[in-house]
């Protein structure tokens, strides 16, 4: 039983006067304790929506979300059930995720009070311990958020999540608003915490390079669906989905070599009107007839590796260069 399990989750939301949009069209994911799962994708792929559904911030239209075996019910006006408190979230923007008018020590200590995790006299000590765990001095608890830098505030947000003694934390683009220095520091902190506290982390990010360093396994999302999942080194060595291949090729390398990154032709379609068949087919260099008609399901091709692509067969996953060679397709001309 996984710590966090999402199965065939569908999330829709209303757009004023334009009808509903299916931001997530059937995604499945699993996170174990002590494991870091990266969820990558570009704008509009639905990864943030999926993250919010995973913790109960939005209600899914279909599918199941289970945390430690229990169903995750969306938040209502009442208090969230205590059993779910061990499923926490860290948000992207460290400036808006902390209340500007309350001391950070109080905000971290909220969990201790609400969940009754420490009697009042011991709370200050526990807060100091949490601050130390994220690399901040104990004296910081008396400060207000505006006194800290972005990286420091993100540490506070992590400490706040840790205060609830979670077993799984969902992090929605936690590094996106940070400087390069802070990004590396916070990434290392997260890895350290996951190992030390046996936390499961679901790390949502658009930055593939960071995810490659931090995550144990990666899920790639495109237009509301999971395109591929694999252990991190395998994903980079042999991507099995054409979108993953394109994504990896588009990341520029800071090696001074002057290589231009590969561009992907076309644009991400409007999620309210996805293409027929495979959602990626209009931009895919390997697309053939079946791709235009039938939508491929996410199929397990080898232990731990799944892809949603008609080029792949279970038990015999084909690397894309070999597909290219076999069908003698010309390599895709770099687009602009």
């Amino acid at each position, binding site marked *: 039983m996984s710590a966090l399990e999402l199965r065939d989750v569908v999330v829709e939301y209303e757009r004023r006067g334009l009808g509903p949009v299916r931001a997530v069209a059937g995604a499945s994911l699993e996170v174990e304790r002590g494991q870091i799962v990266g969820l990558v994708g570009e704008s509009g792929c639905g990864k943030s929506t999926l993250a919010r559904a995973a913790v109960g911030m939005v209600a899914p239209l279909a599918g199941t979300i289970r945390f430690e075996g229990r169903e995750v019910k969306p938040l209502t006006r009442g208090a969230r059930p205590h059993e779910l408190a061990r499923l926490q979230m860290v948000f992207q923007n460290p400036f808006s995720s902390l209340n500007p008018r309350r001391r950070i020590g109080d905000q971290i200590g909220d969990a201790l009070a609400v969940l009754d995790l420490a009697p009042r006299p011991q709370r200050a000590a526990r807060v100091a311990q949490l601050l130390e765990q994220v690399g901040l001095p104990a004296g910081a608890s008396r400060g207000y958020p505006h006194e800290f830098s972005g990286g420091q505030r993100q540490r506070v947000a992590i400490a706040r999540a840790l205060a609830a003694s979670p077993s799984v934390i969902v992090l929605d683009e936690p590094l996106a608003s940070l400087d390069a*220095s802070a990004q590396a520091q916070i990434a290392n902190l997260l890895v350290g915490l996951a190992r030390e506290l046996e936390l499961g982390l679901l790390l949502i990010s658009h930055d593939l390079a960071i995810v490659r360093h931090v995550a144990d396994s990666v899920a790639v999302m495109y237009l509301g669906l999971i395109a591929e999942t694999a252990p991190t080194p395998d994903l980079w060595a042999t991507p099995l989905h054409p979108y993953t291949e394109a994504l990896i090729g588009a990341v520029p390398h800071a090696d001074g070599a002057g*290589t231009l990154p590969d561009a992907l032709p076309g644009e991400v379609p409007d999620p309210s009107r996805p293409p027929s068949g495979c959602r990626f087919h209009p931009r895919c260099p390997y697309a053939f007839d079946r791709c235009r008609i039938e939508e491929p399901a996410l199929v397990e091709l080898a232990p731990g590796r799944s892809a949603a692509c008609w080029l792949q067969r279970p038990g015999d996953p084909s690397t894309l260069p070999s597909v290219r060679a076999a069908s003698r397709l010309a390599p895709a001309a770099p687009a602009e």
Partner: protein
Amino acid sequence: MSALLQVDGLRVRLPTPAGPATVVDGIDYRVEPGEVFGIAGESGSGKTMSVLALMGLLPPGAAVEGHAVFEGRDLLRLRRRQLRRICGRELAMVFQDPMTSLHPMLSVGTQLTEHVRLHLGLGRRDAAERALELLREVRIPDPDSAVHAFPHQFSGGMRQRIAIAVALACRPTLLVADEPTTALDVTVQAGIIRLLDRLRSESGLTIVLITHDLGVLSAIADRVSIFYAGRVVEAGSRTDVLGRPRHPYTRGLLDALPHPEAAAAQLVAIQGAPPAPRHVPPGCAFHPRCRYARAACREAVPPLVPVNGRALACPVDPLHPGAPT
């Protein structure tokens, strides 16, 4: 060959509630015609302010020193009217967020033609033809309908292409791009990088590219300048600075990046954070965070000196940290 843009001793001081802050502290660089010149640095490094100073776009109350000679004229000494004649025409700028740099209520066509009609005095038909030409150059699909559309109808990547087209309307010799791809997805960013590269090679456009993303610079910049706390710490060719970095900050930045080739689990982070403009440490601004720092580093600001074909502001040789210099 004379430089297209030569910046010497640029200093910018901004008023803050707590007193004046020096955000650019003595920057020198030269941009050669037809090259892509990269300026890299994190927030607070002064990279954006240094360029805003050139274009006369600093906030009121800012004090500027130094020289910035562009095609024989010192931009910092020009009167408002003269500067306005150059900006938009010979010198153009593209910003990070195309949503705020394009006028939301004017059609794309109007924004493109407005420029050429103002600066070049073209008639309506010529201007409209030029607008279509520009959209084709930046590869906007279906330019005939695009001219009548509005910015919000386009995606982020398309809007940035339109912003580039607007900047190119009067065929400037120098294009300054401030974080042009930061807000974009990685595949869209790849497209913009390729576009800039093609513009450089096809029309000989000179580009000053400012970004915190060393990967982007590594892809198209010819020469790179690394900014830290308002000063240049290292400058040189892309292969030298990014491939064989010498300054501890540059090495730190590159080490902190996830290397696609490295399988190492830990990112080597530079401890601490870049200093705020009012709290720059004495001597070398980077010394509190530098693992090679010595007593001398605290005493004087290391000058930017030529070393083996690049410019370096650090007396310590990272390859032989113990060796005296």
